[in-house]
């Protein structure tokens, strides 16, 4: 019953939308109807936008860029976050910088990224890195910070050294928060990606790039179809991470 219930609201909404489109209240050029979008999905899968550039290639390039930037964010953010959560001094030292850089939208970095890395995968990955880095860093730090001090005391009385405490208490204890950071981070990365691809694509592939092309050739149905794919992919990534989390963090 619950399974059915979660589909009711979206289906009703889509039905109303379709009716409004049929009746002409919503014009095609403002918002194509659900059927238009399904037809457009067919186009982008089999014909491609621009022609020959098929959906799965756009998707793979986008995923590749996200993976690169996101992996860099995790590799840098997790260790630094653990250190920040552990050492009050380091936290006091780094926090002002983090809090100043963090509010700058990744997109504001685009000109600098292009200046530093040129147009291409490296600048796209850099922008995605910026989007994902802070959620990963801050969640990891707060995870370490919230590890009960009594566990650290227990480890000390069992003769653990600082190194033992780092690797055997702080790291495993912050895994759930690291996952939270990764899920938030990958969401931001995915959002950032599409925007980054509006401006920094070298090879004509990427979901953001595809949407820009659809805009240029005035195909709102293909724009919407691209948006649907982006949303669904984000959903799938989130579900996969949740699975990984519940598989790795069996103790929580």
């Amino acid at each position: 019953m619950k399974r059915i219930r979660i589909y009711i609201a979206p289906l009703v909404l889509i039905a109303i939308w379709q009716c409004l489109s049929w009746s002409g209240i919503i014009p095609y050029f403002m918002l194509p109807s659900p059927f238009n979008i399904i037809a457009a999905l067919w186009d982008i899968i089999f014909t491609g936008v621009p022609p020959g550039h098929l959906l799965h290639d756009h998707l793979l390039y986008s995923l590749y860029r996200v993976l690169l930037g996101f992996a860099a964010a995790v590799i840098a953010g997790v260790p630094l976050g653990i250190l920040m959560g552990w050492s009050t001094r380091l936290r006091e030292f780094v926090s002002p910088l983090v809090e100043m850089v963090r509010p700058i939208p990744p997109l504001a970095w685009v000109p600098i990224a292009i200046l530093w890395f040129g147009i291409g995968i490296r600048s796209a990955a850099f922008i995605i890195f910026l989007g994902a880095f802070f959620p990963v860093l801050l969640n990891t730090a707060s995870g370490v910070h919230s590890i009960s001090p009594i566990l650290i005391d227990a480890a000390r009385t069992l003769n653990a050294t600082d190194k033992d405490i780092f690797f055997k208490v702080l790291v495993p204890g912050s895994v759930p928060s690291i996952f939270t950071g990764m899920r938030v981070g990958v969401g931001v990365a995915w959002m950032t990606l599409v925007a980054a691809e509006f401006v920094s694509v070298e090879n004509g592939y990427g979901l953001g790039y595809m949407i820009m092309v659809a805009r240029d050739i005035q195909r709102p149905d293909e724009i919407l179809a691209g948006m649907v794919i982006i949303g669904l992919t984000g959903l799938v990534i989130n579900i996969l991470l949740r699975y990984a989390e519940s598989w790795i963090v069996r103790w929580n």
Partner: protein
Amino acid sequence: MDVFRDISFTVEHGQFVSIIGPSGCGKTTILKIISGLEKASEGEIYIDDNHLTGPDKMVGLVFQEYALFPWRTTLQNVEFGLEIKGMEKRRRKSAAGDYIKAFGLDGFEDKYPFELSGGMQQRVAIARTLINDPAVLLMDEPFSSLDGPTRNSLQDFLLKIWQERKVTILFVTHSVEEAVYLSDRVIVLSGRPAKIVKIIDLDYPRPRGRTAIRSSPAAKEIFDLLTDETIPVHM
């Protein structure tokens, strides 16, 4: 402000000594200082001729809240100390296995702490501490969050372990019943700043009857001392 002053006592090898006092009097702080988790502004601690200056492998501490690592299974919690020492995996697994058996935890080796009852969690915690073979076992109100029957059975279990392994125990509690049932000697503390009010030796033979020991003169004396200390007098 001083948490306590002039607290000095000796525990003999193999003795079971309890510290009892009003809540908030700093009983836990005494254990934290002995275990090296906190530094005393003054004073010294010796085990035989060894001056303790920090966490020491001769001292083990069992916490009221169990303090098990939630991401480790029973087996992994118990073997933690051996892993820290760098013992080879197969040897420490078999050593931890022996403790698990002796502590009645077989079948629960691969369970995480959240899957165990409070009494089992505390047994895992005691095993985790004892596997390091400490000369002195410090226990900070270890049974106070357990229900009555579980607490009784863990008290008996602890006595059995204590007698088998000849370990010295320093046990903090706020329960007179628990102190007189378990201990050879009870140290009664006052409220803050805590001082030693009296040290009472309990020469009752073991095994003791719970009802008999509860109504013993020693129990009454401790109870009266604590009542005096707990009710603040305003002038």
